[in-house]
């Protein structure tokens, strides 16, 4: 509950009209960003615990003096996916992407994962290999002065049958294959 209160308090502050419209002073904007980051990190402990229970089927054991079990998966959020940045997908040869559908109906969504190379394989929870397409990260984004990253592509795959208020996980691994790099249409 204290973790959630970080987000509760931050969301209370973020309802100020300056926060909604962006008319706050810049130093206040930095403070809002900091508070949101802290709140996301705090709530991350809850989502991590809940998702580890859900995905492994374990039951929590709230025994006094009981040492908490080691976390099996980290379930990190990547706040900079909007500029194709994510430490996990950039640095890992194997990683798991878990998608939680917050809608009350099932959903099909195209997922974009920033990756440094174009040789990954996406497997769903049934072991099926999903089709993946690589699209170069646009030049304007690559040239951003404060975007330091080795990612060159957005890997796109189609995640369907995401259950309402539920999740599906995908196992993504780098392969030794050397597929063709995406090439643009020839100039007309």
């Amino acid at each position: 509950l204290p973790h959630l209160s970080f987000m509760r308090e931050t969301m209370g502050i973020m309802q100020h009209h300056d926060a909604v419209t962006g008319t706050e002073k810049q130093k206040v904007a930095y403070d809002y960003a900091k508070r949101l980051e802290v709140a996301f990190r705090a709530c991350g402990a809850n989502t991590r615990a809940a998702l580890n229970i859900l995905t492994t089927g374990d039951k929590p054991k709230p025994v006094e003096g009981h040492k908490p079990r080691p976390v099996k998966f980290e379930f990190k959020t990547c706040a900079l996916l909007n500029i194709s940045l994510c430490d996990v997908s950039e640095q890992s040869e194997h990683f798991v992407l878990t998608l939680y559908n917050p809608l009350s109906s099932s959903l099909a969504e195209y997922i974009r994962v920033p990756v440094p190379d174009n040789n990954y394989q996406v497997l769903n929870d049934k072991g099926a290999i999903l089709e993946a397409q690589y699209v170069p990260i646009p030049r304007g984004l690559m040239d951003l002065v404060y975007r330091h990253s080795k990612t060159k592509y957005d890997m796109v795959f189609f995640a369907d049958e995401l259950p309402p208020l539920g999740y599906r996980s995908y196992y993504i691994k780098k392969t030794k294959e050397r597929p063709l790099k995406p090439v643009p249409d020839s100039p007309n």
Partner: protein
Amino acid sequence: TSSMTSVGNEYIRLNFDTNGFLSAVTVEGMTRIISQDFLYYEGAVGNNMEFRNRSSGAYIFRPQNDSMKITTTDVDITVYRGSLVEEVHQKFNNWISQVVRIYSQKNYAEFEWLVGPIPVDDDIGKEIITRFDTDIKSEGMFFTDSNGREMIKRLRNHRDTWNLEILEPAAGNYYPITTKIALEDDRARVAILTDRAQGGSSLRNGSLELMVHRRLLHDDAFGVDEALNETAYGHGLIARGTHYLMVGFSQKNDSPTQKALERFAQLEVTLPTWKFFSKTNYTFEEWM
């Protein structure tokens, strides 16, 4: 202008002209002229001692005049095609670029724009808009959402409950857009969904515009006591966001479902899946 290239799927197809601008959209056999461009207003520099003559700033949008400036006449484009998504990467100038994409099973087009740092070397504050011009005969009428819920009918240069004298034709017709702005005629309907609250309007028949970024050099004397001129790492701020373009038959005509499709799309884009990444040393079999 002649069409140079097109991207699309079975639901929607976008045509781009020889200058690299969007030129037409086809849905279900109906083709409409729809162009898209980035333009800017120059921010007003006023005398803050006079209430009606304040500068454009954080709290108020007041262009120096109502004529917009173009950002380019020629867009560099690169087209990538695949079985899941087709993308057009557009470069308007050194500080505006955009990716237009259509996924294979979606009935809308995404316009992911990147704007900034807005240059102010000429000592002129700028307010950047994206504008979609269509051949739809909207007759001054357009629709904006009320915080993502019902749509409100707007009529240019008009208020329902008082006689209006518009002194500022652009700013006086701007409305808050939280998720959607739309217009239609007897046959066609165009809606743009946003990923954040923005200002928007329809200043000409068939035209929709949304303000995407602003950099101003004067305070507007409404309290913040500083110009809206923010920097990061020594440069002006860069903004990135997405607009979703939906085109269909208007409710008055063939299809009563277009607004329903917009509602479904709105839910999808404003409440997307939460993505959690986990490094793992497990093999796929162990993970299973």
